[in-house]
């Protein structure tokens, strides 16, 4: 299979890609709404599962500010060891990347090293943005909105909005209500709450911690209630109901929820094709792989791993930070093994980021405080494998912090333009030359 066969989908296809959703058609008469359920093909999709015609983006958020310098270790620079006498990673323990004599990976990241050696990993060094903000919330919001003022909707939300309804950032006040309610399965966040990044003005993604929470729990009280509940949710609108009313809207959403719940729960119930390691991120990625295998028409999945705010006792080769990195690397490796076994790996690009890196020097608590620039990773067979951009200098600092060398929005631009085949200028509100990090 070659990548040029992957067709760029049109807006029309985008809208019709998902389930036959009743809410997408506000004027659908009630008898047709009921049959919308019957129209949804097995598996809930309109195309053949497993056929790699649609591209998927998976975003992994490392929350808390991942220490970039102990993730991608600049072992070739003596200043690194001077700045980190207690937590620095010894040169002979660093996982080397080919013949590179400057940087390598933390010893816990053997999963990433394997992907790298397999030509499936791009490491982008020194990623940041101008006037870095060191507040978790603010900096996270900046990454989510792709806006250094952290204002506006999420960048992926804007992508959804642009695709479904044809408008971009800043085009406020002139938008008419879309004809229907856009497909909520376009984005799925595994987690307690949908991240800001995925929230558009029109499109709201689905989010759930586990499939168990994406169902009605009343049936657990008395299983006889399940049937009645199903019938109530599928009842659709009465002839007397005004389809434009809120009652009509809710009735359609209830119908969608039934279809989505059934589809998603069926999907995540399937057994993975490979053994996943322990850990929360691993569990989340396993769910994503199952949903991809089931042929859900979701474009973007969002998962996250927290705990990176290592102000004290972060450890070096072993310890807290090392464990987090192991979760991350091993889960990502298993994820791609699973995707490959499914025959879906070519369709799935994964991107990881954290809201900021940490300070160059360790603090007195054997930890590190909030910093600035840090590495990003892109994984998948379609990445331009290797190391992208120079490692930031450890001596030419900005108030003790690394200076960024590449704006994260150029990476977003590459993902939007080359992978999702949309116009990044519209989504990012400004022109960012796409970083050359993908082979497509």
């Amino acid at each position, binding site marked *: 299979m070659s990548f040029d066969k992957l067709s760029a989908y049109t807006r029309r296809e985008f809208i019709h890609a998902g389930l036959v959703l009743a809410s997408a058609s506000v004027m659908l008469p009630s008898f047709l709404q009921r049959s919308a359920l019957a129209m949804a093909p097995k598996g809930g999709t309109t195309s053949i599962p497993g056929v790699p015609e649609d591209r998927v983006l998976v975003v992994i958020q490392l929350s808390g500010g991942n220490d970039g310098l102990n993730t991608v270790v600049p072992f070739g620079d003596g200043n690194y060891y001077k700045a980190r006498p207690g937590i620095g990673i010894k040169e002979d323990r660093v996982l080397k990347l080919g013949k590179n004599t400057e940087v390598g990976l933390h010893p816990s990241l053997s999963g990433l090293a394997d992907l790298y050696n397999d030509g499936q990993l791009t490491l982008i060094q020194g990623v940041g943005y101008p006037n870095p903000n060191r507040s978790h919330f603010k900096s996270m919001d900046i990454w989510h909105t792709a806006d250094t003022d952290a204002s506006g909707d999420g960048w992926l939300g804007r992508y959804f909005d642009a695709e479904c309804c044809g408008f971009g950032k800043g085009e406020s006040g002139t938008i008419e*209500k879309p004809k229907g309610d856009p497909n909520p399965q376009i984005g799925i966040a595994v987690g307690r709450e949908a991240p800001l990044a995925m929230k558009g003005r029109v499109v709201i993604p*689905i989010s759930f911690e586990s499939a168990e*929470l*994406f169902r009605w729990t009343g049936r657990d009280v008395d299983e006889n209630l399940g049937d009645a509940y199903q019938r109530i949710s599928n009842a*659709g609108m009465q002839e007397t109901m005004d389809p434009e009313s*809120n009652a009509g809207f*809710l009735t359609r959403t209830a119908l969608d929820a039934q279809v989505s719940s059934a589809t998603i729960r069926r999907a995540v119930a399937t057994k993975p094709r490979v053994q996943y390691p322990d850990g929360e991120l691993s569990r989340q990625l396993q769910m994503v792989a199952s949903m991809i295998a089931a042929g859900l028409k979701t474009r973007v999945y969002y998962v996250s791993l927290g705990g990176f705010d290592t102000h004290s006792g972060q450890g070096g080769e072993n310890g807290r930070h090392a464990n987090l990195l192991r979760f991350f690397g091993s889960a990502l490796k298993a994820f791609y093994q699973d995707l490959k076994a499914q025959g879906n790996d070519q369709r799935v690009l994964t991107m990881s980021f954290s809201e900021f890196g940490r300070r160059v020097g360790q603090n007195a608590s054997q930890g590190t405080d909030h910093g600035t620039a840090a590495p990003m990773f892109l994984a998948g067979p379609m990445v331009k494998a290797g190391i992208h951009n120079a490692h930031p200098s450890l001596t030419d600092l900005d108030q003790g912090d690394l200076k960024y060398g590449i704006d994260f929005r150029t990476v977003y631009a590459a993902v939007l333009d080359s992978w999702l085949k949309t116009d990044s200028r519209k989504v990012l509100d400004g022109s960012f030359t796409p970083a050359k990090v993908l082979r497509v």
Partner: protein
Amino acid sequence: MYQPTVSTQRDAPAEPGRRINDSTAPLNAKNFGFEEARHLLWRAGFGGTVSQINTLVRWGLNKSVDYLVDFEKVKDSPAPEFNADIMRPPSEEERREAEAARRMSGVDRETALAKIRVRRQNAEQEDRAQMREIQQWWLKQMIESPRPLQEKLTLLWHGHFATSYRTVEDSWHMFMQNQMFRKHAAGNFADMLYGIIRDPAMIAYLNNNDSRKGRPNENLARELMELFSLGVGNYGEKDIKEGAKALTGYTFRDDEFVFDRRNHDGSSKNILGRSGAMNGDDFVAAILERRECSRFVAYKLYKHFAGDYPSGRKTLDSAADRVIGDLASTIQLSRYELKPALKKLFLSQHFYDPALRGEQIKSPVQLVVGAVRSLNTPVRDLSRVCDAMGRMGQDIFFPPSVKGWDGGRSWINTATLFVRQNLMVFLLTGKRPEGKDPLAEQEPFDARAMLEQLREAYPQMSLSDPTSVTDAVLRFTIGRTNPSGRVALDEFARASEGKDINQTVTKMMLLISAMPEYQLC
């Protein structure tokens, strides 16, 4: 987004039917029955029990509205004592300590700084815990308050002057702001506007504490006009720039508002057609002179209590447009006193038009508080309930941005709908997705009490006739007897005949609360 009139809206498909009553003349007292009283309780409050509805019916329209709006006459218990000093500024001694640490070098310096950092982190942790307590307290207050309208207005102002703990990071300041909203809830909007530019939480949230002569921060000036008082299009960029100068020096120290004269720009300004050496209060006064301000407040009241506006439905919007105009005039006439406008709305024929009833999507707060207040379900576990409210998109004290919550249909998607339905399962039975509340058996939902009250309201209801019971329960819980899922509900009721009535009605409540119509009030 605020739209001053509906004329800019695209024509929506004509809805079937009827003219909508757009009169703000009082409803004929004769027409104030169970349905109307139920509607009033849900909108001016968070819903009520059958006997509360019946009490309002007995009182009649005027007395009911007076009782709800003149709420100071009802005694309320004072708020608990929270700790004001968790996030206090450093003491003299701590300041000296920090200075000394900065003068040190090497390991000593790092150790001393680390000690200070740990102290700060502990305080932050303690403060986050207090914020959760305050959050739960307010939820409890909304559930238990004998003054539902006061709490509902406090919620309105919280969303209107949206301020998030995420940025403020001082739970006491959030609490003080909440108490200010409560104090002026149905008072005078001008007091609220003068209050908000002196409010430490708001000043911190919109960075006015960084706003100094020579480099003003425009954040507060902009939002003061755009979101708090006039709406987009009713001021210019120059008003923002000049307004920001007027607000320089409006800051706070510890928990107190401070006018910092040294950092205030005392130059002559020109804002909204007024000029002079205006300060922040003069800026607010200039805003309050604008007609647009009374219309903006009227629009906010309408949206909170009456219905979506604009809704995209032409007949509804043109009626709403007229009513908002009337309310705006009332507000202007009363010099921003809110009670006359509130009473006018709650008495009006328009407010009771069938097109408005049962057509507002409950906010997560409305859903939760309404369920407990109307059904008398156990509250079970406030922290779990707060958690669920976050999942439904309304984390009180944590609005998503200064724009507050969009409300309406934005509350609902396939995921939040399950959270809403499952929260009702939790309140009614104690069942959680991952197990059962250990206290569930000791705290069952008492359906019998509801049935007793319903029998009083509907003498024709008979426990031996399932249809009559279903009719009565539906009229009380969703305000109509013919929801889409009625057939399935009837069949379930018939199949349960002869079984324990309390259990059967509890299960029927599970089904009813899972109906799309239950999300409306």
